[in-house]
């Protein structure tokens, strides 16, 4: 009897303990192991950091060649003081891992297509896409290039060793909370992961191409309509390099234009980066500032997340000290300043991704025809160890162009290979930020950016000696006119790139007469630039920026802060007067009259207190959809994707051709003109806004936008609260959905240099730390922190929270 009782109790005890030590597999997401998670010694409680108690610490590592010290300031920003850069990078790796390990792990997993190992089947499709795009292939090639540079690879080795030193020092109780929730262990960092990180940035910034949709649209509507709807240059555009710049170089010969390969492709195009994913940077020369010294500003716009996109730090080595933001996973400071120079980045929209139709030599798709020769494909087997499921293996086919990214078993002759600049080996991105750290003047900056290739960036510069400059930097294929705008014939190598544009032919500006340099993802040049290029370019912010900078003088830091937070929309200023002038049927009742009156007197600023910007956006989008109804019906009829005209072109048509056939709504018997379409769109928009006002008479843009900074792993409880902010995709203060300024920086190049900055989040990646989101309110309110730029580890006084020493 007793034995049975004992056995029953033992089994219950054992069974229950086992049960709560393991995840419960409920689709789609497993429930984390309750016992592991709830026990206060190794579970989630252990991620609850003390909010006000900080202790000095010391560490000992064999990987360091000298002594080093780190002081943390009030925003938990580390100031590293090391005897050499190699040691500094070790420490950067160590402390970045300490604060951001899960972010580093998950972002490189996402890049390399290994998410489903920890997230399960949910993310398998995404993983397969990443593998097919050859992300690991790209990273391996990058690493091969880096390994040819001993000094830089040693620095990267040191960073990796620093990350791993932290990982090895951890006990399960120290794991970031997300590891505990998803029930997996951190794995070792590698140099390849740093390369993957760079390639994943390239992926989110380079993929602004429409080859597939453009080819379909051209084939459906014909050349004449295509040229009419999709001109490459917006005449209103204010390019990065001022209009009328003389090109003082002898351009290489441009290959002759070739006929375009027509065809209809029903592949589902890859998800594009959001069109408003953009950034601003500029520098004003001393002639325009109150202090007489240049001021440099940069606000890169990325998908905002918690843990935050950037990790802020100061790096000090004998003779050099620099400060700024770094990417968790890559050594050095990406955007920042030192005592003599400052630098910043925005994305360049040039198309560096092309697609080639593959001519298979037979059904097996194991060889293809190129220049009348049969070439074998290289087969790469990709293995997916899906968590809580089976292991899946599939095949990616590599051609000389690149991997086959679009394939359909039914129409193998429409399989497309991707030629992407990021797959190439060669550049040494590592030395760019090493050189910036020690840069003293314009020449150093010019040399530092030379190897910055992928993703292409507009690199802005200012020095304390008074120089300002901006260089469009990358690796740009030499293309014939319209080459790579459409899908090309992959059976002829002459359709490939004909070399690259020489770096000294890249568009650039130094100390222009107008007293400022600027970029906001718009066109690099006007149409006189000798090399053909196309891509995705912004049409409104650049114009606003240049217009406002032109009008400013005696500029102060506060003026620059105001400019970064400016809500003016050139799009609204272009479109609204036209739309209002065409609007028939004035409002009937008092509410409607008031709404229209407000809209008429609106100043085109997307301020959070206003309602008119909501109405404008509703109205414009209804008008846009009604205008391009033929696109939508063709898409449905042919079951494929088309290219929609850009908004600036739609506005231009409204002005130039209000009677054009495109304004006719095809499913009505009547022939509509722009006037009817604008009016009908207004009625629809008005209904929407009235409904919002009925529910809440104080409805406004801030409430409407529901701006949130979500968690990187989409765990709602780890995301931010809803922020009350204004802004728009077309305003300098780009805030839309979860996109926005992921870092705002202003550097006054006075002596000593003074800098201000803020980002939407905090230094810690731990949702249990007060430093996870402590800068969020400042960011939302358009406020900045003055940066502590320390000369020595003993400085800082009561602004220092704690110190760490390394031996």
């Amino acid at each position, binding site marked *: 009897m*007793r034995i049975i009782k*004992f056995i029953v*109790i033992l089994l219950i005890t054992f069974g229950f303990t086992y049960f709560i030590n393991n995840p419960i597999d409920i689709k789609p997401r497993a429930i984390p192991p309750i016992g592991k998670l709830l*026990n206060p*010694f190794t579970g989630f409680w252990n991620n609850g950091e003390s*909010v006000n108690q900080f202790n000095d610490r010391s560490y000992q590592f064999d990987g360091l060649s000298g002594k080093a010290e780190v002081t943390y300031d009030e925003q938990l920003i580390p100031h590293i003081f090391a005897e050499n850069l190699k040691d500094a990078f070790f420490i950067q790796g160590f402390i970045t891992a300490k604060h951001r390990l899960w972010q580093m792990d998950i972002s490189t997993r996402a890049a390399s297509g290994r998410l489903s190992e920890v997230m399960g089947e949910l993310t398998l499709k995404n993983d397969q896409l990443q593998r097919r795009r050859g992300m690991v292939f790209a990273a391996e090639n990058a690493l091969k290039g880096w390994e040819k540079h001993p000094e830089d690879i040693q620095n990267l080795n040191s960073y990796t060793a620093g990350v791993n030193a932290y990982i090895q020092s951890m006990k399960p109780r120290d794991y970031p909370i997300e590891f505990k929730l998803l029930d997996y262990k951190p794995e070792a960092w590698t140099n390849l992961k740093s390369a993957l990180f760079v390639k994943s940035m390239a992926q989110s910034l380079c993929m602004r191409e429409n080859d597939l949709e453009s080819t379909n649209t051209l084939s459906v509507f014909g050349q004449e309509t295509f040229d009419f709807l999709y001109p490459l240059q917006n005449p209103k555009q204010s390019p990065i390099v001022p209009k009328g710049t003389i090109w003082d170089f002898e351009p290489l010969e441009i290959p002759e234009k070739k006929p375009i390969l027509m065809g209809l492709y029903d592949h589902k195009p890859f998800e594009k980066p959001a069109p408003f994913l953009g950034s601003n940077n500029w520098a004003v020369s001393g002639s325009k500032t109150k202090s007489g010294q240049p001021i440099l500003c940069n606000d890169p716009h990325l998908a905002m997340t918690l843990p935050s996109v950037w990790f802020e730090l100061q790096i000090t080595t004998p003779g050099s000290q620099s400060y700024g933001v770094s990417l968790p996973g890559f050594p050095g400071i990406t955007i920042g300043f030192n005592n003599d120079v400052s630098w910043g980045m925005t994305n360049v929209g040039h198309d560096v991704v092309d697609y080639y139709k593959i001519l298979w030599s037979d059904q097996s798709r194991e060889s293809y025809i190129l220049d009348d020769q049969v070439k074998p494909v290289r087969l790469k087997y990709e293995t997916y160890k899906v968590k809580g499921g089976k292991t899946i293996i599939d095949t990616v086919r590599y051609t000389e162009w690149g991997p086959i990214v679009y394939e359909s078993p039914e129409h193998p002759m429409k399989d497309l290979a991707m030629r992407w600049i990021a797959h190439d080996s060669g550049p040494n991105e590592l030395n760019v930020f090493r050189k910036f750290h020690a840069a003293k003047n314009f020449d150093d900056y010019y040399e530092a950016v030379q190897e910055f290739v992928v993703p292409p960036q507009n690199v802005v510069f200012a020095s304390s000696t008074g120089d300002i400059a901006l260089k469009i930097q990358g690796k740009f294929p030499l293309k014939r006119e319209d080459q790579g705008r459409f899908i090309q014939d992959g059976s002829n190598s002459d359709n490939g790139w004909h070399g690259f544009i020489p770096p000294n032919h890249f568009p650039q500006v130094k100390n222009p007469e107008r007293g400022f340099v600027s970029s906001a993802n718009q066109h690099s040049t006007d149409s006189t630039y000798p090399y053909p290029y196309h891509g995705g370019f912004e049409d409104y912010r650049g114009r606003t920026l240049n217009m406002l900078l032109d009008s400013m003088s005696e500029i102060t830091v506060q003026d620059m802060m105001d400019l970064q937070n400016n809500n003016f929309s050139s799009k609204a200023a272009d479109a609204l007067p036209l739309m209002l002038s065409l609007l028939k049927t004035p409002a009937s009742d008092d509410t409607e009259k008031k709404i229209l009156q407000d809209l008429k007197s609106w100043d085109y600023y997307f301020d959070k207190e206003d309602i008119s910007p909501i109405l404008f956006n509703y109205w414009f989008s209804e008008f846009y959809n009604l205008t391009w109804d033929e696109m939508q019906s063709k898409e449905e009829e042919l079951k494929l994707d088309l290219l929609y005209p850009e908004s600036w072109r739609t506005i231009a048509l409204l002005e130039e051709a209000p009677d054009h056939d495109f304004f006719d709504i095809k499913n009505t018997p009547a022939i509509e003109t722009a006037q009817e379409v604008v009016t009908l769109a207004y009625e629809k928009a008005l209904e929407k806004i009235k409904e919002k006002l009925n529910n809440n008479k104080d409805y406004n843009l801030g409430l409407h936008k529901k701006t949130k900074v979500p968690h990187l792993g989409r765990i709602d409880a*780890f995301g931010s609260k809803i922020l009350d902010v204004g802004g728009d995709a077309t305003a300098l203060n780009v805030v839309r959905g979860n996109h926005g300024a992921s870092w705002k920086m202003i550097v006054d190049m006075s002596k000593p240099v003074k800098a201000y900055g803020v980002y939407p989040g905090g230094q810690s990646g731990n949702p249990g730390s007060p430093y*996870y989101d402590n800068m969020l309110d400042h960011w939302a309110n358009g406020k900045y922190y003055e940066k502590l730029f320390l000369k020595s580890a003993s400085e800082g006084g009561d602004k220092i929270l704690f110190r760490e020493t390394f031996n």
Partner: protein
Amino acid sequence: MKFILYTLAIIILGYLGHTFLPWWSIVIVAALVGLFTDYSGIRAFSLGFLGVALLWGVYATFVNFQNEGIIASRLGELFGGMSPTIMLLITTLLGGFLGGLGTLTGNQGRKLFSGAKK
């Protein structure tokens, strides 16, 4: 008196276990202490329950106080909108239940070999 000593033993040994061993060592600690007891089943269970509930509850309360409830609110939200206090309560009860099971198992094991009358 003995009951208090056993409780203290669970707390101290349990804390050591949590410092050096996997989290579930607490069940083994409770079972080991349970081996020394000749209590009735209910009393044995209560002993482990009290010991581990105290250890987990007090420790979690201390962490929560230092952390001003940040992590507990986040996790509470994740678990469907529970407050830090509820999270503390659940933690305490779970610890108590595990401890109770542990001491009960030890206690029954002792009875198996001691031959003591019920």
